[in-house]
């Protein structure tokens, strides 16, 4: 029962405190705007609490075990026992530390944070429900940053055994058998991690292979690694329904599973927060159509997974800056040269800009990389894509720490660097970043560490 609804006013209301919303809040507060940030759950959103952050902590731990167990040929023999409950606690602790950091940054910036369920009541007003009370908040501008959620499968009702990525990050024991439904990057990352922690993992994928949108060159080292780890990949396979022992597959096959992870994708939360009452334009993916200032309607902005483009935390944060600039009257638009994408598979995949083969493409195999050899992972390669003028327009790599190449690669593309610029930049030895210079030298016809 709602009694005596409080009404207040803010210059900028931000709904959703993930890497889009909290960055917008900090930036807007920095610009001197009165900001109210609303989230029904914890600060930090999916990424920080149940996404990028805990999954990377899990992947690191899994690799520690796997690395220790697979170094016996190099003179290192180890026994590693796994306490899943402590691991789950560790993942939560990492998230908690970062969440507290975000909380104190917001507090220092003077952002008003409200925990509650926000709904648009009008174009300029939200009603926020929390603990049996409802308050009204009038705003001059609003940024919708409510993100996305995992897609469910109707036949697989979630419970203790059938979980989404969120559940797969809080398991308190290592499942003997795990089935991952969906071979996208989330399924591959989680499947690999649990395989390294001792699970017998099966990945069920409807398409012809895992990582459906990743170029074959980049994908293949990962597919080989999955095989080495004993992960069963079932391509062209549909999961029909759960059984007592696992998953019934189309065509009569059956996959054993104590834990079934549903990782078939995510959908934007554009059906919540009474967004429909705003009459915003949605595209066929149910994403909110925005202009280059992230404006969906005058005074209403949308950022992050709700808007077209890849559903990535760093895209949301970059869009947050643009939206705040639009609100504060700074000339800006969301028009990146490229958005880097990283997959924490084994080995890692990094991809930014124009695809392999869309321009002159130069490949430097990691077999010739000193750093890759020292890490003991030389199956991948670095690819440089240039246009006719020699400007770098794409960089892609599969290999150890490939994700860390995203910085230099994206900077090069944003700066319209030429391959000559890359070749003329001194790269530290021994690092994986040398592979960029090596690929650039190759482009000039003067390869250094590989034969012509």
């Amino acid at each position, binding site marked *: 029962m709602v009694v005596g609804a409080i009404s207040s006013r803010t210059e900028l209301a931000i709904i959703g405190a993930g890497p889009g919303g909290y960055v917008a809040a900090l930036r807007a507060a920095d610009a001197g705007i009165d900001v109210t940030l609303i989230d029904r759950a914890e600060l930090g959103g999916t990424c920080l609490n149940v996404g990028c952050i805990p999954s990377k902590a899990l992947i690191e731990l899994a690799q520690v075990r796997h690395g220790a167990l697979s170094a016996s040929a190099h003179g290192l023999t180890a026994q590693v026992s796994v306490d899943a409950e402590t691991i789950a606690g560790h993942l939560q602790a990492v998230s908690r530390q970062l969440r507290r950091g975000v909380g104190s940054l917001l507090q220092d910036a003077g952002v008003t944070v409200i925990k509650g369920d926000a709904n648009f009541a009008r174009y300029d007003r939200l009603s926020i429900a929390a603990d049996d009370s409802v308050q009204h908040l009038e705003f001059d501008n609003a940024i919708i940053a409510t993100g996305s959620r995992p897609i469910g499968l109707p036949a697989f009702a979630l419970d203790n055994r059938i979980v989404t990525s969120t559940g797969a990050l809080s398991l308190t024991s290592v499942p003997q058998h795990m089935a991952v439904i*969906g071979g996208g990057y989330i399924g591959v990352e989680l499947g690999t991690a649990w395989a390294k922690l001792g699970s017998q993992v099966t990945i069920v994928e409807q398409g012809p292979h895992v990582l459906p949108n990743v170029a074959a060159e980049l994908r293949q080292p990962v597919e080989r690694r999955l095989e080495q780890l004993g992960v069963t990949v079932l391509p062209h396979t549909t999961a029909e329904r759960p059984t007592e022992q696992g998953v019934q597959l189309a065509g009569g096959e059956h996959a054993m599973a104590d834990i079934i992870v549903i990782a078939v994708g995510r959908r934007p939360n554009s059906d919540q927060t009474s967004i429909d009452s705003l009459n915003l334009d949605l595209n*066929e993916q149910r994403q909110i159509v925005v202009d280059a200032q992230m404006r969906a309607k005058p005074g209403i902005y949308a950022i992050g997974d709700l808007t077209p483009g890849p*559903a990535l935390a760093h895209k949301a944060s970059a869009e947050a800056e643009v939206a705040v600039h639009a609100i504060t009257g700074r000339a800006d638009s969301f028009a990146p040269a490229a958005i880097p994408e990283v997959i924490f598979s084994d080995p890692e995949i990094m991809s930014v800009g124009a695809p392999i083969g869309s321009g002159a493409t130069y490949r430097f195999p990691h077999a010739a990389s000193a750093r890759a050899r020292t890490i003991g992972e030389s199956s991948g390669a670095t690819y440089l894509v240039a*246009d006719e003028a020699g*400007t770098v327009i794409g960089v892609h790599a599969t290999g150890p720490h490939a994700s860390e190449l995203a910085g230099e690669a994206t900077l090069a593309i944003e700066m319209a660097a030429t391959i000559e610029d890359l070749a003329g930049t001194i790269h530290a030895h021994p690092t994986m970043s040398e592979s960029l210079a090596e690929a650039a030298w190759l482009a000039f016809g003067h390869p250094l560490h590989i034969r012509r």
Partner: protein
Amino acid sequence: MRHEFRLADIGEGLEEAEIINWLVEVGDHVRRDQPLIEVMTDKSNAELPAPQAGIVTELGGKVGDMISVGELVAVITETEGTATTPVSESPTASALPQADPVPPAHASAPAPAPADTAPIAGSGSTQQRPKASPSTRRAAAEQGIDLSTVQGTGPGGRILLSDLDNAGSLSPATPTPATPTPATPTPATPAPVAPKTAAAPTSAAVEPATTGVVALRGIRRAVAKNMAQSWSEIPHIHAFQHIDAEPLLALRAGLRTKGGDVFDNVTPLTFFVAAVARAVAEQPQANASLNMADETITYHQMVNVGVAVASDQGLVVPVLHGADRMDFSALAVSLAQLVRGAREAALDRKYYTGGTVTITNFGSLGGEQALPLIRPPESMIIGFGSIAKRPFVADDAVVARSTMNTVIGADHRLLDGDITTAVINRIGSLLVDPLQLVL
């Protein structure tokens, strides 16, 4: 479903148009808004877009024929699957110049799965994007320079910060007269405020057409005081732009042809108001008033657009409040009601107050260019000249094209050339691609 596409009035007073060129043939599949036909009227050439997707099953004439308003242009038959256009071709593409290709749905997903499938799809080709570093981009945006018009001198054609110095920002190309004398090139607009000429023909109603001395009263008195204050107190700066008006005419024709009642109200003024509201909303510093008495600046929340209208009582400026918060159809309806109300002197007083920026549509009187005066305490006035055939450079050739001049007058105490230019440039970019205003 069979849809008859008939010629609508695409310009003021159009009665008929000559078919210059067919852009489609019978049997062609057309997308919505795909140009169907090029026609010439006594005022302009225009491409008329398809009002809907489908197959062209009949053409209304051959090249050289005259079509009258209301006559058949073409018949488009809607087939299954043509009714919806792929998303990747429509608003998103224009909204995000560097839009990432929408990833195909995940093979194993029962529903569209944007997130899991998005990564590594490739962040799109960078081929058409002007090559420039982020700092250069920022500088260009702040100076209102469209990088696609700048020749880069860096390696690989990269646009350097220094290249922006030679770039075509508005002001050098169309120099503002050093002294804003009331005299303008066009005799039709001799007064400092163009719309005053609007008052002239109709003001006979309030000003006796006799010789002798009469008291200065009513609206004439208010205008006199207001303009004297504007002229003596506000250091004006003006900037101009000469823009292609054909996209606007074509879109307006398309909207009217579509037949929705709300679009019957669409006139060029609708686009002007929508463009001004959008451009000013994007530059909040420009939506402001200077109060010299207490030396403060008031920044306004909403963009309230005043529209100079010639009424029986003289020049009046009804205000469309919150124009920046209206979608296009709502704006069209509200504006039409407002203007009608003002002409008929049927508006409540509140509709004449609270303006934050004013539009003068002196082009509707035939004026090509003018130096309009700001209405204090506003900080800007934006004028639109006549739409007429003029020499225009397109694709490196001078062609006859329907164009118009736009002008902005800004209070230099409050606004500098950068924001002034950014606002008029933005208005120009919206009017040249007016679909942005409708979507």
